[in-house]
């Protein structure tokens, strides 16, 4: 096929991309230097970026997202890997396939529904968690989990408990299944216990998967604010505020689109830096 037909076939895609995908981020970068309400724009230099350092809500939001995403990234990956290890050590193939599908099923509960269910679990009056505490005779530990500033952020850390992500488990399991059984058998003969085997053999072999999934969960956790958007709106006060939600409110509640673009660029920069750090320090020794 002549080259020009190739270009012609790619044309519709590029028209879409230029309008909806290339143009917006360029605007975002450009307008982050302006005082912009969507219509009028006044050039401000770096003042939007400088304002961020004095914006108490933004600084609080950065602190919150740091705690929240560090905890959640570790929890999600440790638990998913744990389940993958359990499945890997299962001798019955049919049972393994059953569990694989069972752990994928939560994917089909729409995010909005599962967030509402967590709201129901945490409800101070009717919630599942308080009912459970009451049944155990631990009434003194009951809280309005999302409504109190001391518990709200911790409650958000536990959204999605036990943090097992079916697709992550599947990818870790695929990595573990690439291990040769003879290596494992000889390790056991040498007297390796389970933990030594995990650190010395399993983990080094699946570093590629670990790195990929750490990066993916890092990108999604650092930027996400749907949970806060639906459950707490950043409150009480600023107890659960995160940068993405702050950007949303600055833009659509206060109409400061230029400042919001600057927040967006900073979120982007933080994600890039963390991704780079991750790539730099976790290096799989085998390119499998």
């Amino acid at each position, binding site marked *: 096929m002549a080259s020009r037909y190739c270009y012609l076939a790619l044309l519709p895609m590029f028209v879409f991309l230029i309008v909806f995908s290339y143009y917006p981020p360029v605007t975002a970068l450009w307008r982050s230097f302006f005082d912009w309400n969507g219509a009028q724009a006044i050039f401000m230099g770096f003042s939007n970026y400088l304002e961020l350092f004095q914006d108490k809500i933004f600084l609080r939001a950065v602190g919150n997202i740091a705690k929240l995403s560090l905890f959640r990234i570790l929890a999600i990956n440790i638990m998913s890997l744990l389940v993958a290890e359990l*499945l890997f*050590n299962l001798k019955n193939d049919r049972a393994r396939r059953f569990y694989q599908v069972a752990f994928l099923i939560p994917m089909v509960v*729409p995010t*909005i529904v599962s967030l509402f269910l967590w709201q129901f679990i945490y409800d101070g009056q009717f919630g599942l968690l308080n009912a459970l505490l009451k049944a155990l005779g631990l009434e003194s530990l009951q809280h309005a989990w999302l409504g109190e500033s001391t518990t709200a952020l911790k409650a958000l850390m536990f959204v999605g408990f036990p943090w097992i992500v079916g697709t992550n488990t599947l990818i870790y399991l695929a990595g573990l299944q690439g291990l040769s059984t003879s290596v494992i058998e000889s390790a056991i003969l040498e007297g390796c216990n389970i933990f030594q085997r995990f650190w010395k053999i399993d983990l080094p072999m699946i570093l590629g998967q670990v790195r990929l999934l750490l990066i993916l969960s890092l990108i999604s956790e650092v930027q996400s604010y749907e949970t806060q958007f639906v459950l707490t709106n950043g409150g009480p006060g600023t107890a659960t505020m995160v940068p993405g939600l702050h950007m949303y409110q600055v833009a659509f509640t206060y109409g400061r689109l230029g400042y919001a673009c600057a927040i967006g660029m900073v979120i982007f920069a933080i994600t*890039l830096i963390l991704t780079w750090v991750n790539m730099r320090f976790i290096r799989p020794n085998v390119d499998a």
Partner: protein
Amino acid sequence: MLVSIRKMQLPIHIILIAFLLMIFVPVLEMVNISFKSDTQFDHNPWGVEAPFQTENYVAVWPMISGYLLNTVIYAVSIALGTVFLACISAFVFARFDFPGRDFLYLMVISLLMVPPAVTLIPQFVLVRNLGLLGTRWAMILPMVAGGQVFGIFLLKAFFEGLPEELFEAARVDGADSIRCFFYIGLPLSKPIIGTLVVINILGTWNNIIWPRVVLSDDGLFPLTVGLMQFRQLFYTVWGPLMAGYVIASIPLIVLFALASRLFVQGLTSGALKV
């Protein structure tokens, strides 16, 4: 050594089942409570108890069905548009050689790095300036544009892996490029295209922020935005509330039941090799 692994089997099963219980108890309670009247909930909120009330479903269906239909319209249009454009482009990138191909592909793929946080606000202004604010197009067009990037990434790797001999043989028999695509490329790619469709539909179903930003007419709201209003209406009237949540979840469960084999196959083969 074999003995020790056999001994471990029972504890492994117990731990896995405990995890599954933790995951599924809230979902099962949602279904359970959706069949309870208000008085039943007050007396016995958690236990399963006859009679099962279907009134909750009857009551909320008229309120939810419009949102559900909208979400289906968005999900199907976005998935069709994305798969159509991504298939063509991925096929061209994978199986033809032309000047600038690698550069153009890199240009497309680099968009995977640009996060929604950066594009949300300028995309909103763009949609407003195009006069699309408050229309279905505001939901569909930007999502097709964004979705095809991941689609091209996924499909190109797969199309490249198809054996060249098949296409060679077809060309000898006189098939042109378009026929090669429709009669060889597409039929062999069903699992990966199915995977793309499922991921795409899940994305639309779970899109919370964007519809909230660009839509204002209740008649156009998808489930995500609709349910947030619905929840405020029924707050603490748990039976109807849970019935609404169940209705919102059923289509995805059906989709998963139909496509799970394709999906697991597509995820474990092909493009996600690390």
